[in-house]
């Protein structure tokens, strides 16, 4: 194990990789800290730059962006009370009140330090369990992969939004987009409506940029005229702003939040965006003084920032061992690997061991850069927050266009970006969550290929999907998750109605 990790470090310890990691972390923090720009967007925009790089160098850049982006959200959450990314929603709850009390330095220090520890714990778990999980996954056949794919989409669909039905619709729409172009196995063109540009289907990058970047720009245009928040600029940061006694008081909270973050990260489809809120709620419920939460105590910041960063390591587990993304950013990392002809999954550990451990090493290095850069450059990042949206967004738009154009050197993909941006905006307006679309789009081919191959092997019988124990287990869990989510929704609605009737 140790020698493998040493190999990993040897892979990334060259000037190019280190520079890419550092640059990635820096850019990631900037994207993370500006509300409306997210880690997902940063990775999508930088993906085209990795085409010309070696796989490990490309991954080094993308992982730097990921780790910087998730952590960077805390800057805006604390100084602006607007989460920089969905992963730092709960950081606002106590971070801003603490900053408003004149202790912004302390709030930032705590957030940065526990981001670092959270990432570290998540990565430790990743390195510890991923190899053994991969060897189990090696035994998976078509049936298991089909079941895991279905499980992943329904998991995300039912957990991420208020409405299970709408979440599932999003997943189904993602599947439909994935079907455009040549069908797997026999290559028959489908749903191209005569456009030859669609013969190869939609590329993942235009879909991602459209869904996560263009829709943001459309939204921002719609919100024109609403005042931007005021950034607290006047603060001092000394040390990490907290004492050893305070650190000791947070140890239970730290490990609980890290465990929540890692667990949520491993579950396919959901990541830091969900885990920070869950960890915050858990910390509040377990606290002896829950009434203090929300007034600016460090417990809330610790819970949120530990959990969202711990989710990074967790989200990489299913990606590396099964080729199933743990959240939207890892969905793009999957794309980044596939561009280089690498298929994440159990075979990656066998065939590309040094790359796998190189990825682990890159994450560890990125984490150290994140700590240093956020600590030393916090004043700069606070300044970045004051850059007005009307200057920032047009530039982002141009980068989207360049990124999409770069996929195949054709304008068609740029039009696709605009198309998906409008679709995403309308779907969000209709109350449909976007992440299941991405998961559906990415897992569609996996699910279909394995379903068709499985059915061919069994000569049309669906029995093997239910007789293979692992496949059966995943399908049963899928059913349970959906039923529970529907029940919860129905119950919430009923109590709503009772309340309403009580009022009238």
């Amino acid at each position: 194990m140790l020698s493998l990790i040493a190999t990993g470090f040897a892979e990334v310890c060259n000037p190019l990789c280190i520079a890419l990691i550092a640059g990635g972390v820096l850019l990631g923090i900037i994207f993370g800290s500006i509300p409306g720009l997210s880690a997902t967007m940063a990775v999508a925009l930088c993906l085209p730059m990795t085409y010309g790089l070696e796989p490990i160098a490309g991954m080094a850049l993308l992982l730097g962006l990921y780790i910087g982006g998730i952590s960077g959200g805390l800057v805006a959450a604390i100084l602006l009370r607007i989460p920089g990314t969905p992963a730092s929603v709960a950081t606002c709850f106590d971070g801003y009140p603490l900053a408003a009390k004149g202790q912004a330095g302390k709030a930032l220090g705590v957030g940065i330090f526990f981001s670092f520890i959270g990432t570290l714990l998540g990565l430790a778990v990743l390195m510890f369990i991923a190899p053994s999980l991969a060897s189990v996954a090696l035994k998976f056949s078509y049936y298991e992969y089909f079941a895991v794919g279905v499980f992943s989409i329904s998991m995300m669909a039912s957990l991420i939004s208020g409405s299970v039905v709408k979440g599932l619709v999003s997943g189904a729409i993602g599947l439909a987009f994935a079907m455009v172009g040549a069908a797997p196995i026999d290559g028959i063109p489908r749903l191209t409506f005569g456009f030859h540009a669609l013969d190869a289907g939609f590329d993942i990058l235009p879909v991602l940029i459209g869904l996560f970047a263009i829709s943001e720009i459309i939204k921002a245009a719609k919100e024109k005229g609403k005042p931007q928040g005021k950034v607290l600029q006047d603060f001092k940061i000394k040390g990490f702003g907290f004492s050893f006694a305070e650190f000791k008081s947070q140890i239970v909270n730290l490990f609980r939040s890290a465990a929540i973050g890692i667990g949520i990260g491993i579950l396919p489809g959901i990541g830091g965006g969900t885990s920070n809120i869950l960890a915050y709620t858990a910390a509040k419920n377990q606290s002896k003084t829950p009434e203090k939460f929300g007034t600016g105590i460090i417990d809330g910041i610790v819970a949120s920032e530990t959990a969202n960063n711990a989710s990074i390591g967790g989200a990489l587990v299913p990606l590396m061992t099964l080729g199933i993304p743990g959240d939207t950013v890892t969905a793009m990392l999957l794309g980044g690997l596939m561009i280089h002809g690498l298929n994440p999954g159990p075979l990656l550990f066998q065939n590309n061991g040094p790359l796998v451990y190189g990825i682990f090493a890159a994450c560890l290095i990125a984490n150290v850069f994140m700590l240093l850069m956020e600590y030393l450059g916090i004043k700069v990042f606070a300044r970045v927050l004051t850059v007005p949206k009307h200057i920032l967004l047009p530039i982002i738009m141009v980068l989207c266009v360049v990124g999409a154009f770069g996929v195949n050197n054709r304008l068609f993909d740029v039009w696709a970006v605009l198309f998906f941006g409008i679709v995403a905006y309308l779907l969000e307006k209709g109350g449909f969550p976007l992440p299941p679309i991405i998961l559906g789009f990415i897992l569609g081919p996996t699910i279909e290929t394995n379903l068709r191959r499985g059915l061919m092997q069994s000569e049309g019988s669906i029995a093997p999907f239910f007789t293979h124990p692992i496949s059966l287990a995943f399908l049963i869990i899928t059913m349970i998750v959906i039923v529970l989510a529907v029940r919860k929704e129905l119950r919430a609605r009923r109590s709503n109605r009772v309340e309403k009737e009580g009022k009238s």
Partner: protein
Amino acid sequence: MLRKYKDAIVGGLVILAAVGLFAASLTIQSLSLNLIKADFFPKMDAILLGILGIALLWDGLRKAGQASEESKGEEKSGMSQGTRCMIITLALIAVYIFCLEPIGFLLSTFVYLVIQMLVLADESHRKKKDILLFVILSLVVSAGIYLLFTRVFYLMLPSGLLG
């Protein structure tokens, strides 16, 4: 009125999409030598989408029935400033993409950036000083991106008139 039926309308649209997907799947040719053909999965997805759409429609109609007389007077007449800004932005992006190839990346990006910044900025940010800033920024950004991607990442961007 419309707001009340929003969920039902959304459900109806999902059903329409499902029907469309199913109809489109019917045109997929299939090689008879395969047991499970290429149109199998699209049809399954369409059926799933249809069922979900019916659930949304049913639920939306019920909700609309309950909501009856509540939440009236929320609708605004005419177009809000935001909606207008959004439509202009979308049109602007479309024109920009359309011009990329004939006019070239550098020129069309510069023009797009200046106009888009003006469109998104509110009144207080449209003074002479701001406009000068927009122009300089647009020039630097479009040239910077062009050089970065063509020289460093070896990506061919449309050169158009200046090429």
